[in-house]
């Protein structure tokens, strides 16, 4: 039985391309980083906190601003935003200790985990977005 499981695992791994495998690893890393840096506020299930901290789970704001997600994570946010018809206005702190690969991994995880249909953005475009964040977004 164990042998059979091993064989099916190996077959499964071979069935994935290198790119897919690396993306799976990134999502796995992203999940751990999310737990460490994001889940205190947005909660492990992405449900947020009442009217204080917006949800990520099935959030229309997240879908609409998916491309800006790396900059939001890196530099934080402030001011009013509308999420699923409700207004939120709590400052989100910057995470400038996270490196580009960390931010990328969190983005891949969040976009895979919380929208109703996973959003797939190319890693290169997300990295480019981190490098081109507006400097005044603090």
């Amino acid at each position: 039985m164990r042998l059979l499981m091993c064989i099916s695992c190996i077959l499964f791994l071979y069935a994935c391309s290198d790119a897919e495998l690396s993306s799976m690893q990134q999502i796995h890393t992203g999940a751990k980083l999310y737990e460490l840096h994001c889940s205190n506020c947005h909660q492990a299930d992405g449900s947020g906190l009442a009217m204080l901290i917006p949800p990520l789970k099935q959030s229309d704001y997240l879908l609409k601003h998916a491309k800006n997600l790396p900059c939001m994570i890196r530099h934080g946010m402030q001011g009013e935003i509308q999420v699923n018809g409700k207004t939120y206005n709590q400052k989100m702190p910057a995470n400038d200790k996270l490196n580009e690969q960390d931010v990328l991994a969190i983005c891949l995880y969040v976009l895979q985990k919380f929208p109703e249909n996973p959003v797939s953005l190319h890693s290169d475009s997300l990295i480019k977005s981190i490098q081109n964040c507006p400097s005044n977004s603090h």
Partner: protein
Amino acid sequence: MVACNQNKTLPILGEKSPIDSTYATVPPFVLVNQDGDTITEAFVKGKIYVADFFFTSCPTICPIMKKEMLRVYQQIKGDPAFVLLSHTIDPEFDSIPLLKEYASRLGSDGKQWQFLTGNREQIYELAEKGYYATAMPDSTEPGGYVHSGGFILVDPKSRVRGVYNGTDAKEVDQLIEDLFILKSEKP
């Protein structure tokens, strides 16, 4: 399970006085709530209450604590036996209007769940000596427990009856259970 709980009594925490062997109680306090009203120990007289310490701009354990306290609130809402007191430990930043907005966005009615502020030294003293030192007499680190995320259960005679990790859903489940055990306790 239910049968066990009916027989369960909660311990009374803190040292007994060597003079008259009464238990330690939470000292009197004068604080201000989210509406600018003065709140003293008279507000919780004869009530079972849960106290915690937080600040609105805290990105670490506070949101989890508040999510858990919201769960407690939903269980006791409308029952006049219970009150919740959340104290800010950042009174310079957490102004009364800010606390008011925080409370209402969290879903508090502003009565049964109070958000309290006051003089910084007074709040820290109340937290350390009034609540946490009674709950955890072994704590030697000054200020260490103020940020610990503990929920403190206090009985109608102002005695500390339990301390629960406010970031741990299982401990908060226990707190909710213990609130009702305390309610059924004969005075």
